[in-house]
């Protein structure tokens, strides 16, 4: 019910030259009222270049989108639904957060790509289509006025297809020179449908992007904080995101046993989903572990479903985490992002934090996490949301993550 002005020291600026970042949040239950409040708070009368909206699915996103867009002036608007929102004074649910970015030092271009098939209920999505959507959305990099530092911010639909294809498609457009950062929209753990906002419209199965080019550095940090539990398992058969067998045994059974799942988890689908949120799989990459979020299972076929490809022939591990490991990952991710800024003070931090990590932290831990972020932000405004997948590519070609914290530090 409160109106919040969340200003950092550097964000009290004139409308004219200096780049700025401001965050507004509203916990009002009426969508329009909340959208209005949050947007006005973020703009504080200034003209922005970009507005990014993180809205709970409690809200009617269509109304939110229209409202924000109507208040945006000349700013581009993108956004998505969440599994929780984050601002400097803590995490919240059922709220609405708007991050505004403005000033002469920024150039912005946005893009949209929609997976046609995803619009049809029950359609079987092929990854080509998802990739094409990403390619299309990422064309914003071609339209943005290039300054010294450019990143591509993406918001995608985590419930649709192999999210790695989103990254591949975006990379195809952006190339090696432009880092990718962002996250997958959520729906408060319902796992039914998420939404993306572009301008005044709402989509599902879409990829929305904002190419942000700046005179000042922009940093990206990535950490997950999960640790290996037990011995490796060979992915003996898998089809894309569906893991069929591990060590030649049904994947679901292996998974349940490896994590000592209680009885109800073994039989009830929702119980499984809740259980699996904090129990991801890890895949070995060249010099790190990539985490795979376990989104669900097929109890008939005894398969386990992730939201990104689990390659056949690879080694997988059960991953486990606790408050300590998750929080220490927070510190490291913030530090990594801020390191890129060098001496430049951050204007704002944006976090894309996997819902799984929030589940490990629970309330007290979540507060602790945001508190640590505040510490790193050193007064700069914080915004972000709890995601169903995170995107961060600073090197190499891949960049899709699960159960991970991605921090965007805007310098």
């Amino acid at each position, binding site marked *: 019910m409160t109106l919040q002005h969340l200003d950092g020291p550097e964000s009290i600026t004139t409308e004219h030259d200096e780049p700025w970042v401001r965050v507004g949040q509203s916990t009002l239950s009426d969508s329009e009222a909340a959208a209005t409040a949050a947007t006005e708070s973020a703009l504080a009368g200034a003209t922005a270049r970009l507005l990014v909206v993180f809205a709970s699915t409690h809200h009617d996103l269509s109304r939110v989108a229209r409202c924000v867009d109507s208040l945006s002036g000349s700013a581009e608007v993108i956004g998505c639904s969440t599994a929780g929102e984050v601002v400097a004074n803590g995490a919240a649910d059922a709220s609405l957060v708007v991050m505004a970015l403005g000033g002469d030092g920024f150039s912005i271009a946005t893009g949209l790509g929609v997976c046609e098939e995803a619009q049809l209920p029950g359609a079987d999505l092929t990854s080509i289509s998802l990739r094409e959507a990403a390619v299309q959305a990422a064309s914003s990099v071609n339209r943005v006025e290039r300054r010294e530092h450019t990143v591509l911010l993406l918001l995608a639909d985590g419930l649709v297809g192999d999210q790695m294809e989103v990254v591949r498609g975006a*990379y*195809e457009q952006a190339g090696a020179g432009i880092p990718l950062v962002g996250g997958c929209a959520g729906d408060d753990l319902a796992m039914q449908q998420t939404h993306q906002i572009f301008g005044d419209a709402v989509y599902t199965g879409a990829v929305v992007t904002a190419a942000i080019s700046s005179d000042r550095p922009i940093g990206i940090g990535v950490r997950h904080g999960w640790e290996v539990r037990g011995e490796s398992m*060979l992915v003996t058969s898998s089809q894309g995101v569906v893991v069929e067998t591990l060590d030649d045994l049904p994947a679901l059974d292996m998974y349940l046993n490896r994590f000592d799942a209680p009885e109800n988890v073994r039989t009830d689908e929702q119980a499984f989903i809740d259980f699996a949120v904090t129990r991801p799989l890890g895949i070995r990459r060249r*010099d790190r572990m990539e985490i795979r979020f376990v989104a669900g299972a097929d109890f008939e076929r005894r398969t386990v479903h992730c939201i990104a490809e689990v*390659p*056949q*022939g690879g080694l997988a591990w059960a991953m486990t985490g606790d408050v300590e490991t998750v929080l220490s990952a927070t510190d490291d991710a913030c530090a990594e992002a801020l390191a890129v800024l060098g001496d430049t003070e951050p204007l704002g931090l944006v976090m894309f934090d996997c819902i799984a990590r929030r589940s490990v932290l629970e309330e007290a831990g979540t507060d602790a996490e945001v508190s640590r972020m505040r510490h790193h932000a050193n007064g700069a405004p914080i915004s972000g949301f709890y995601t169903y997948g995170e995107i961060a590519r600073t090197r*190499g070609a891949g960049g899709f993550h699960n159960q991970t914290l991605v921090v965007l530090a805007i310098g």
Partner: protein
Amino acid sequence: MHDASWSLHTLAEFLSVFSPDGDQDVLRLAVDRAAEAFDAEVAIVLRLDGEVQRSIGVTGDELAGLTAECNNRPDHIRLASGALSLLWAPLDGSSLLAIGRFHHQFDSEERALFRAMARSMTLSMRLVDAVEAERAAREVSEHQAHEVARLLTELQARTAMMNHLERIQRSISVRRPTREILDGVTTGVLSHLGAQAAGLFLEDESRPEVGVLFCVAGEGSDDALHHEISEREHPARLAVTTNGVVVIETDRAAIPGTEDGFINTDDGSTMMVSVLAAPVHRNGVPVGALVLQTNNGGLRFDTEAVEIATTFAEHASLALNDASAMEAIRLALDEAVHQATHDVLTGLANRNRVNQELNRLLDAARKSPVPHPVTVLFVDIDRFKQVNDAFGHAVGDELLKGVAARLQEHVRDHDLVGRLAGDEFVLIIDGRGLADGRLLAQRLVAELAQPLEIEHRTITPSISVGVAEAALDDDAESALSSADTAMYQAKQRGRGRFELFDQELRDSSRRRASAESDLRRAIDRQEFVVHYQPSVRLIDQRVVGVEALVRWVHPTRGMVRPDDFIPVAEETGVIGEIDEFVLHEACRQVAEWGRSDDSMADMSLSVNVSARQFSDPALADSVADALRNSGLRPEQLYLEITESVMMEEAASSSTLTRLSELGVRLAVDDFGTGYSSLRYLRRFPVGLLKIDRSFVDGLGLEHEDEIIVETVIGLARSLGIAVVAEGVETDAQLHRLTELGCDFAQGFLFGRPRAALELPKMVTGINSIRIDPPTGSENVGIRSAETPPLDPTDTGRL
């Protein structure tokens, strides 16, 4: 962080992406996955002329700059974005796959992986082409139907091969034993190409110019772990030296190094063979080859076969790139060779190796233009069994190790020391004769008598050594046998010494060999008989038992004295059968006597048991059999062993337990002459002590003998054991023994041992006379049972 299993899994993942459906954008998959696998920013597929077919990561000028270099294929290139490290690999003969990475150079493992990925992709692409070709066939004419069928078969084969490769990946990933993995490679390539045999060849790092062919699969391959190949022209070695695939089609006999076992043909006929060797790498360096052979114009090694073989070779390379796998192979090879030839406990050469080496030296000696002696020392640890029994096997093992180490100290580096079995060792001294062997033996006997500290105990070993210089026509077995005979002689002569196998020993050993065959023949012809010597109770001078003694009635030599054949029988082991015979026969006889004559119903029977028989675990069974078959009561039977046998050849406790359970007792023969442990008297079911005749002889003459006799009787009495005096020949001895309280007596005073037929009469005779103590005079002559009986009512003395 990445290690070999990373590269294998990455390859496995890469392989699994490509399906044979043909509806994939293979090039897109290739660039995406290749870049992701290596954290590379750039990936390109381009034609050899530079035309880009697919790319990610760079565009425009940078891409153009990169493709311009496709002929040079540099390791790195400087672009506007930064310095890019590059890897290139051919695809399908007409294209190239390249990946580039800004932040890290590629290491050798990544290079190997990339090569493998490119090659796998090539095969996949061909697969896809095959499917396309099949789909493109519209009219199903006979020709085309055939074509389709052929392509389908090929498709299946490739899919199967992909599956097989994937299986190999997996086995490497989960760390299956290296041998199993490499077997998978050889059997895999064999089954896919239809060759006759496949093997993996690896150069031996420690021996230049030599390599080992192993993991052989296919027809005619035997079970031998390895075949050495040293011929430089062998295809496998050529593949290594040229770092390229070698294909040879020729007359089999013309390929050096194949006679020995790569493919064995029974008839040894010449035939046309094709051999393919594809190099196998480790860290980019060729270290061996995958070798295939086909016979008589079977499979021809065409381009495709070369391609497939190369793929499998690269899989083997990946396995070998795993440092630990390589180490494991090397260790396994060394281990296998070592184990096959060495004793586990002491590390010395084992019997196989000793035989092998000795034969080799003897061969060489025979061929030598100048005399070249080879001397063998056979070393046996004295009383080893006692040490084991007394202190346990751990100490026994340490003793063996200690002796082994000491033996090794005293020989030259190239002289072989081996452990044959148990506590037997062999030293082979090449180029030295008997005199040198003697000196060495002398030194060894002295040096090894030094005490050893083993687990806080001081153990002073002693060895018996036999020295033999091999005869010109000796093989390993006969040379060892000669040294063994000399060693045995050393034992016979008291142990802790050495003996030479000289002419005398040679002759006596020949004699013994012939004696042995005589004895065996004698058993077959039943030339052995049992004679019986009565044992008299001194209280009433009645016969209470008999001792069974074996006699040999030779058809031409007549009665052979026991001294003339028992030792030989013991040495050769024939004694076992003789003992068996005596045991069964005597039991039968005495039981029969008991049934037919009441006065002999309680007669005891002493049967001599040799050292060998006593330590035989089957002894108890044998005794039980004899009792059962004869009907003799167990308490009637005494097994007679000499004191020294009781001490040295201790029967297993289970034998003793069983004998006790049966109710059979032991009689200790020649008591007083050996080193008795009183504990043994308690431990064994001893019922009788037999005082050696030497002490009986001294009664009335040697004071000490009398004391000994008295002591023994006292000892026996206090232990509840009966005493028999042996070799009683005079009345005076008889009476003195009676005075001293001895229980029984045996000897010529009562008559010589008799054949079964005559014994009952002898017993009657003895029972009917009484020898009284002399009155006044000292030495009374021998009285025998043949003298007329005295007055039976004369009670005489006790």
